[in-house]
């Protein structure tokens, strides 16, 4: 799934101020050649294996399969170092940044997962790291702030706008405008101007690459009937979908955060409610007013609390190549607790959205269903606690 001239159909592009053009253009000219080089691939693959702990298991969940009368496999991204898929991307980008001669890394973070993964990669690579985080999120996610600081990163509060993820992203982009030469910006999802969505998708595509090999080994067929993943910006989802797009066999199911319900006004269901527009340099669907002001979303899961969606997902949804559904906060919590009790795995609230969809569709008895378990739920204990 490669973009053409930076666009997936009509979505994507690089709608950026001229001040960012040199930075983004440098990346665009260099990224593919660097990623394709043998030297990069060797270092990246070795780190994914020895440092991140890949391949992550593809676990056949006997209990869930019996309950839902189908065959359910969990892709265990929660077992990665730092506890989520985010590290696949930050390791890739830090190696790229080093090859571009950059000395400093900036990143945005919402719940802090991408911030921690970035701080981790920077510690490993010996790079200076500044993470922008909304003032509101800093208070909500204090343990992750401490983790980042322990890892040697500087956490900079974003105090503009609604003081959450979208504002942290704005602040990071502004910082990049102010420091165009020595700084690389590690975006945490398949969002932002081209080439970010493509670059991040390539780094996350290791998820579906492994699923193929593992399924082949386990059942003799590399293509599942369904892949289910949660989607905020959409990096774990595109990673899980990547090698199954257009194979004519696999249903790609992206689960958005419905919040209190798609019609409640408190939701992050971008595809369900969004209109085409521009956010953070990319043309996609986004939640906005008639006047084009970006609306603050709501989800119980901080990682899905984003008013836009990666342009590749906008394209998959718009072209009918993928299916986009939503589940509510309550359904996600229930699914998270259910998996904890039935399998002894506490999923991140984000991943719990993907699991909640199992209640919504009746899959065939012989169907192969892969759910991408994007992260672990330790960070969400305070939220879970209110419901048990």
């Amino acid at each position, binding site marked *: 799934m490669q973009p053409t001239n930076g666009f997936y159909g009509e979505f994507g592009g690089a709608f*950026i*101020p*001229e*001040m960012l*053009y040199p930075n983004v253009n440098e990346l665009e000219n260099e990224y593919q050649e660097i990623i394709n080089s043998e030297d990069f691939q060797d270092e990246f693959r070795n780190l994914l294996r020895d440092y991140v702990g890949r391949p992550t298991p593809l676990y056949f969940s006997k209990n869930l399969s019996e309950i839902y009368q189908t065959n359910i496999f969990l892709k265990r991204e929660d077992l990665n170092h730092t506890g989520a898929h985010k590290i696949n991307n930050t390791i890739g980008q830090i190696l790229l940044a080093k090859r571009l001669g950059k000395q400093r890394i900036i990143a945005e973070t919402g719940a802090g997962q991408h911030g921690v993964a970035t701080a981790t990669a920077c510690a490993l690579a010996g790079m200076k790291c500044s993470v922008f985080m909304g003032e509101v999120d800093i208070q909500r996610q204090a343990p992750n702030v401490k983790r980042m600081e322990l890892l040697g990163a500087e956490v900079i509060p974003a105090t503009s706008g609604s003081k959450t993820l979208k504002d942290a992203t704005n602040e990071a982009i502004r910082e990049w*405008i102010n420091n165009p030469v020595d700084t690389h910006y590690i975006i945490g999802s398949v969002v932002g101007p081209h080439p970010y969505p493509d670059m991040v998708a390539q780094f996350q595509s290791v998820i579906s690459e492994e699923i193929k090999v593992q399924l082949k080994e386990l059942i003799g067929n590399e293509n599942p009937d369904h892949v289910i993943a949660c989607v905020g910006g959409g990096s774990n989802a595109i990673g899980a979908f990547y090698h199954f797009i257009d194979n004519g066999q696999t249903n790609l199911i992206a689960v958005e955060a419905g919040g209190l319900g798609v019609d409640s006004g408190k939701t992050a269901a971008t595809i369900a409610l969004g209109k085409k527009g521009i956010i953070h340099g990319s043309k996609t669907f986004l939640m906005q007013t008639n006047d*084009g002001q970006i609306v603050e979303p709501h989800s119980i899961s901080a990682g899905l609390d984003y008013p836009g969606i990666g342009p590749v997902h906008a394209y998959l949804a718009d072209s009918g190549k993928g299916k986009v559904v939503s589940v509510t906060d309550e359904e996600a919590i229930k699914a998270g607790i259910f998996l904890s009790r039935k399998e002894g795995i506490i999923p991140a609230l984000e991943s719990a959205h993907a699991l909640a969809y199992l209640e919504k569709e009746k899959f065939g008895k012989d169907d192969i269903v892969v759910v991408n378990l994007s992260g672990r739920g330790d960070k969400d204990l305070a939220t879970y606690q209110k419901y048990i």
Partner: protein
Amino acid sequence: MNQLKELFENKEGKILSIYFTAGFPELNDTEKIILELDRNGVDLIEIGIPFSDPLADGPIIQASGQQALDNGMTLELLFQQLKNIRSKTQIPLVLMGYFNSIMQFGEERFCQKCAEVGIDGVILPDLPLEFYQDTYKALFEQYGLNNILLINPQTSEERIRKIDAVSSGFVYLVSSNSITGSNKDLSLQNEYFERIKKMELNNPKMVGFGIHDAKSFDHATKQTEGAIIGSAFIKSLSDRATLETKIEKFVKSIQGAKNILKEANLEL
């Protein structure tokens, strides 16, 4: 029709452009601010369309935009406020905003409205050169709307030539690698301003971002036709005085110094 072209052809001395955010400090201040700026001898006015996520702007302009949105400002309302402006002033008017606002309003409808109320040009920092050229240039030209593109210190010579060829009205020289309102030392930018001057562009050059007083205005306009002040002007509006007093005081603080130098026969 084209007030911009006329301004650059006929103006003696340096051009002072002032940016303000529509809907700030009060929702219906737009016309009053325009007329006061005109009365005080400002040459060109940029009207900011408030946006929730203004990537290229610093804290002062962003906060004014947020206040304007809280006041109830919309692009729809802005065009209503500007409906009769041309019966009151002929000062060149440029709209500055982010492309999402235009997309939601409807690109052609936006151009139509601009032509209707007498807007001379637009500055849309996140509408990139190539995309504008391929998708919207013909439309903008059909409605006689100048599109003013940005150049910054990192922009390559080859790209500056392209931008100059596609821009009309003027080109906007971003003073340093910065967002709006950051008061970096402009004397460090002499090499950049000189380099651009030597390129002998087709379009006049206006410097913006970080111009905040008479001294920085003077510095920015040594090698260019004029400069744009935004954040510093908006900051001055937060004073408790009346709008008339604040605007007069601010413009004098820039122009006054200019006139004193002029009387002393000093070239700016």
